[in-house]
């Protein structure tokens, strides 16, 4: 057993002690969709709002100073958490917006609305290609489809093997590739992709790399600088933090050269009626009054995770994942969609129950207080790849227990019994 005192830790999460559906204790196995928040995060947001709230980066009164300090302190702590410098962290409303920010910035460079240097470096045209993978969340697929549509570039992708790994032998990266965008850890399969290998392949052709780290940053130590990616995104609400805040990481010199996405107040340097120039990053990419208590809350979540230690978090979740894989494999008629061994694998466990639709499995689990995700989990092409419309997905966080894994497996057996396939 890991050195983690999960029972003590769970006491920090008020929601985890509630009951659902006729007084069943809640078994929350949907943290991959959104995680629950500890009191420390809720308290930090409340304390900020009760004591320091003001619009940041404006005004010279005391509250404005305090709010700005809180906001920038949050940025520095969140940056350090992923091995980044503060000026490499842009706050967005969520990870999806972070990806769109990059896509629209490249799109803006492509329509000649910026200086020649940025246009030459970031512009896409009909000869260019963007490479993604078949296992992407829609958030890391649709923005690239749209960017290709707008610029005439072509979208290519790595396929996925039946074992749930990227098919690295059939490599779409070529001298035409301008950007390679892929998930660190699949939100469906749990697969952890070989970042350094893909970065090396992208570098060899001069392509940029964007990493969707939504499912890795909350669950294991991640050092973005060490991984060598150019961009990365993750979201606050999946890492014990607030919703309404996400992070775009970008290497400083890239952000400094990129044209803006959303424009308006506080992202400017000089504004005249004839035209404007823009602030250096990260402010260039944070138009308008930003979310502030959310940034403070996310920094509190980072502090909370640091107090546990991300290696401990990862080890605990590895035990839960292993238990789920082993115990589900013992149930006849259950098929795991994704790697069944723990090598390069995180804690998203998706599965099919023969003869029972995922919705119906989810309903039986819900009746027993077990909250899982059912459907395609915003990865429709991946489900199509495996020839299924929907899977059941259990995802873990640091507050889950082995007892909850048992509740999941018992619930799956109950679903089989209920639908007469057990």
């Amino acid at each position, binding site marked *: 057993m890991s050195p983690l005192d999960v029972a003590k830790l769970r006491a920090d999460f008020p929601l985890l002690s509630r009951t659902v*559906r*006729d007084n069943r204790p809640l078994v929350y196995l949907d943290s991959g969709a959104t995680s629950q928040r500890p009191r420390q995060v809720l308290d930090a947001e409340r304390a900020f709002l009760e004591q320091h709230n003001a619009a940041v980066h404006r005004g010279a009164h005391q509250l404005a100073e305090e709010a700005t300090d809180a906001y920038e302190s949050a940025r520095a702590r969140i940056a350090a958490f992923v091995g980044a410098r503060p000026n490499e962290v842009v706050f967005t409303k969520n990870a999806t917006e972070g990806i769109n920010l990059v896509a629209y910035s490249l799109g803006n460079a492509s329509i000649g609305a910026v200086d020649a240097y940025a246009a030459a470096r970031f512009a896409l045209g009909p000869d260019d290609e963007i490479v993604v993978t078949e296992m992407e969340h829609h958030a890391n697929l649709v923005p690239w489809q749209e960017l290709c549509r707008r610029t005439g570039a072509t979208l290519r992708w790595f396929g996925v093997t039946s074992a749930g790994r990227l098919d690295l032998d059939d490599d779409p990266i070529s001298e035409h590739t301008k950007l390679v965008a892929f998930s660190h850890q699949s939100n469906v399969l749990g697969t952890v992709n070989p970042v350094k290998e893909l970065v090396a392949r992208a570098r060899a052709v001069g392509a940029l790399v964007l990493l969707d780290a939504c499912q890795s940053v909350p669950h294991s130590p991640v050092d973005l600088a060490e991984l060598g990616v150019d961009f990365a995104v993750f979201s606050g609400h999946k890492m014990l933090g607030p919703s309404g805040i996400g992070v775009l990481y970008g290497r400083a010199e890239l952000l400094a050269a990129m044209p803006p996405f959303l424009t308006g107040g506080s992202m400017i340097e000089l504004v005249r009626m004839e035209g404007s120039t823009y602030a250096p990053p990260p402010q260039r990419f944070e138009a308008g009054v930003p979310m502030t208590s959310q940034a403070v809350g996310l920094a509190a979540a980072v502090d909370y995770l640091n107090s546990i230690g991300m290696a401990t978090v990862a080890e605990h979740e590895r035990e839960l994942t292993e238990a789920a894989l082993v115990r589900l494999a013992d149930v006849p008629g259950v098929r795991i969609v994704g790697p069944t061994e723990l090598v390069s694998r995180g804690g998203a466990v998706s599965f099919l129950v023969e003869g029972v*639709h*995922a*919705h*119906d499995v989810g*309903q*039986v689990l819900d*009746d027993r207080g077990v909250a899982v995700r*059912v*459907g*395609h989990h915003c990865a*429709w092409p991946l*489900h199509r790849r495996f020839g299924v*419309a*929907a899977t059941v997905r259990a995802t873990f966080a640091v507050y889950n227990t082995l007892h909850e894994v048992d509740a999941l497996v018992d619930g799956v057996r109950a679903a089989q019994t*209920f*639908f007469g396939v057990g």
Partner: protein
Amino acid sequence: MRLSQMYQEIILDHYRNPHGAGLREPFDAESFQINPTCGDEVTLRVALKRDSTGEPVVADISYYALGCSISQAATSMLTDLVVGCTVADSMHIVGAFKHMVQGRGAVEPDEDVLGDAVAFAGVAKYPARVKCALLGWMAYQDAVARAVEAPAGPSQNGAGR
């Protein structure tokens, strides 16, 4: 157990042995509907005819559906209820069914109108499953609209869409 309120025996019967399943010709219109949150889908065809007074009547509903027990059973039960009805009466039934399943459990279903479909009243308490119950019904409503829009009367060419 709340489950048995939702999964009444008659629903499970329809799920295991769906009525009217399969795609048949001839038909007047076809509708493809998808539930974007879960990927479930249905392709449903409607064939109409005229009764002695010239009123359009539902001659056949045929379908291919991929989905959970609730969506499959609801589509199966739809065919039982509306095949043989006038189009006008079938729309009345569709309206009553929608009203019931979207009613968050507060609507007392009219068994005279809905027959066995009152079994889906339990689904109304689970907002996430309402779309499942309605998938085939929305396909029917759409297909009928297309069929009625067609300039000629009931076509027998099976061309569909």
